[in-house]
């Protein structure tokens, strides 16, 4: 008897897998994703370099120093570069030590920035990404064709150029920053891109702070001591009441589970909808009745569910292969320290447990929603009719989508815990909470509840399928469908 289920499943699988559309569909997703990433990287590269100018009311020394400091970029970027500069004796002592997680201490950060400010900006730029500064280039008023020399005149002419769009922005640096910085100005008509202003301000702040420290007669060591930033050493607690240093591979970015849930959601919805379409089509094909003379409705339904499951698994499996391949290449390309969902997911993919729970929750979630959708498909004659009935299902499915980010941030919160115990959300929520992670008993309890629900839903679906699959004419009302459940 089970043999017939297998025959149905096998036919279903082969029919799908043999079509070109199926394989095109499989390959087009990674290609599209890669294309999207590629295009956004390309767009970043293609961004125009914006010109800015500076009017230094104090004679020009501050301007030169600010330019250097700005070019030195943010401290973290500099720290990465310092890690590569093995041979520079000035950087000795900055490479080793550092925080527990390899991040720089506040002291080292200051030292690196000092060092970077003394380097040639163009040479530095060759070493790595310096942040926002590379998108902006300094041009002097003379280069812009400003003949006037009086600061007010120069400012007026620069303002005209900003207004005309020839210049992105210009700064006015005060004459006496040691006393006041109230006369510093930033003039631009672009209000959305403030990377230049913020980067330049940070650079100016560092210079002014250093100068004021010197002026106040404070020894540089004392200054560094005062300015030291606090970095908490990251530890995790164990059962014995002790603590251990958090290893980097144990830190799961909160975005990784979110990425997984999103992927899980897409896969379950995609494959289960495939089943719905397939059932409705087969019903309108009139082939169902021929099949029912050889197999029981239950066998037919199970065969379809598993055949489509195999199809979906093939699809997901190929995608996972792509993802694994990408997991080893993309982080290098993007730089592991970069944030974002993609990198987080790729990092987590290198941890096998994720793949296993993904596979389990995919299968369980699919079976649950497949049972519902196959029953709906059997009751309807056209996809349009089916859409009305699937609406409540889709609404339900929106909940894990909406709570995705929230649960990622609060994996052991009340909402997360409650949703875990509602079988329709269990696969998504438990995957979502992986960063927590939930207690073992929660995994076991929710899984048992989920499996029992799947079994019950399958039985109900079987009854609906048996009656619905040969029905033609008007689609049944929900009340009628519930009536079928009580029959036989």
């Amino acid at each position, binding site marked *: 008897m089970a043999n*017939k289920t297998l*025959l*149905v499943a096998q*036919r279903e699988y082969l*029919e799908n897998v*043999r*079509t070109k559309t199926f394989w095109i569909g499989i390959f087009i997703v990674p290609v599209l994703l890669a294309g999207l990433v590629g295009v956004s990287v390309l767009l970043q590269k293609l961004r125009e370099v914006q010109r800015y100018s500076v009017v230094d009311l104090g004679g020009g020394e501050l301007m030169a120093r600010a330019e250097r400091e700005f070019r030195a970029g943010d401290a973290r970027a500099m720290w990465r570069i310092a890690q590569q500069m093995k041979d520079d004796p000035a950087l000795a002592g900055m490479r080793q030590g550092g925080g527990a997680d390899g991040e720089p201490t506040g002291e080292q950060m200051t030292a690196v920035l000092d060092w970077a400010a003394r380097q040639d900006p163009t040479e530095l730029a060759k070493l790595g990404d310096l942040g926002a500064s590379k998108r902006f280039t300094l041009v002097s008023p003379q280069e812009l064709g400003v003949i006037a020399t009086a600061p007010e005149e120069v400012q007026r002419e620069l303002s005209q150029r900003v207004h005309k769009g020839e210049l992105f922005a210009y700064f006015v640096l005060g004459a006496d920053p040691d006393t006041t910085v109230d006369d510093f100005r930033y003039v631009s008509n672009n209000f959305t891109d403030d990377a230049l202003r913020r980067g330049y301000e940070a650079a100016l702040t560092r210079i002014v702070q250093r100068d004021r420290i010197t002026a106040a007669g404070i020894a540089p060591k004392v200054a560094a001591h005062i300015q030291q930033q606090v970095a908490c050493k990251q530890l995790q607690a164990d059962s014995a009441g002790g603590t251990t240093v958090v290893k980097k591979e144990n830190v799961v970015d909160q975005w990784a589970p979110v990425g997984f849930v999103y992927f899980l959601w897409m896969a379950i919805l995609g494959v289960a909808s495939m089943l719905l379409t397939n059932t409705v089509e087969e019903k309108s*094909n*009139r*082939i*169902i*009745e*021929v*099949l*029912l*003379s*050889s*197999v*029981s409705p239950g066998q037919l339904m199970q065969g379809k569910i598993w055949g489509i499951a195999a199809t979906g698994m093939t699809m997901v499996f190929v995608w996972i292969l792509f993802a694994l391949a990408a997991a080893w290449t993309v982080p290098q390309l993007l730089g592991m320290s970069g944030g974002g969902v993609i990198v987080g997911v790729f990092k987590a993919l290198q941890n096998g447990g994720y793949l296993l729970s993904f596979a389990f929750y995919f299968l369980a979630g699919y079976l649950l929603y497949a049972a519902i959708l196959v029953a709906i498909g059997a009751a309807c004659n056209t996809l349009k009719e089916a859409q009305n009935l699937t609406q409540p299902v889709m609404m339900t499915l929106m909940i894990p989508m909406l709570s995705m980010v929230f649960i990622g941030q609060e994996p052991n919160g009340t909402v997360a815990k409650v949703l875990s115990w509602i079988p329709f959300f269990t696969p998504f929520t438990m995957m979502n909470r992986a960063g927590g992670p939930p207690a073992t008993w929660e995994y076991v309890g929710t899984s048992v509840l989920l499996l029992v629900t799947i079994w019950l839903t399958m039985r109900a679906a079987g009854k609906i399928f048996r009656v619905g699959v*040969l029905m033609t004419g008007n689609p049944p009302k929900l009340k009628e469908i519930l009536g079928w459940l009580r029959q*036989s």
Partner: protein
Amino acid sequence: MEHALTLHGVTKRFGSFTAVSDLTLEVPTGCIYGFLGQNGAGKTTTIRMVMSIFRPDTGRISVLGHPDAEAVKDRLGYLPEEKGLYKKMRTAEIVAYFGKLKGMDRSTADLRARELLTRYGLGDWLDKRCEAMSKGMGQKVQVLGTIIHEPDLVILDEPFSGLDPVNRDVMRDLILDMKRMGRTVIFSTHGMEHAEQICDYVMMIHKSRLQFAGTLAEVKRGRDRGIQLDYDGDGAALTGLPGLSRLNDHGKSAEIFLRPDADPQQALRWLLDKVAVRRFDVREASLHEIFVRTVDEAERRLATTGKER
């Protein structure tokens, strides 16, 4: 085993609608049995119950001597009224698939599918997709899928509908072949001429109730004889025939029934004046006439008892 199929007091309701009501029927092994009735009379529901797609609400069904049709499913062949194929599958593949679903092993099913298709003139189509075939060819493929596993009982729901005359003959030969091999064939049809040509037994359901059942001779016995007339001319004149009781006018031919007191010879004389008679034949009523009259009588009975079904 004497009967391939017996139904005893079988009733099937869908909600408040009774599709089949208290049906008792015996189908002897090795015969060709025609199921007649209007659309919606209950033929398909009966067949579906025999195929254990539906379960009867009350009554017993015994198929090939088994009380549970499910147990002998693999020895039955069924061609439903709504005929469909997997469009993307190849002809030989789908016929073999039906065989495998009936428990044939892979290699036998593949081999027999190709052999059958070739024998019934579809040799060139073995590896073509079903979507490329005409309706008639598709129907042939389906019938072959129905009989590939050499079933003991074959049930065909409207096998002739949508077929051209050549393919109708192929279908008829196929049914006769099966009878020759000792199998039992049940088919439902609206084409009375097919039933008359090839059926050993016929039964008729009207509005869920059995109206008659038996051999063709038994069904026709006791009914008044009719005049089979082939003619040219204005058929409207026929309605004026003295002593006319019923008329089935087909335009070029007609079946005429006279009141018991009227004389066929008189009628012939009258007809010769009105139309050009090409054939005049007094014989037993056609199945068509029996069908139409049964519907009439049943309706009248229902109207007088005033009860719906």
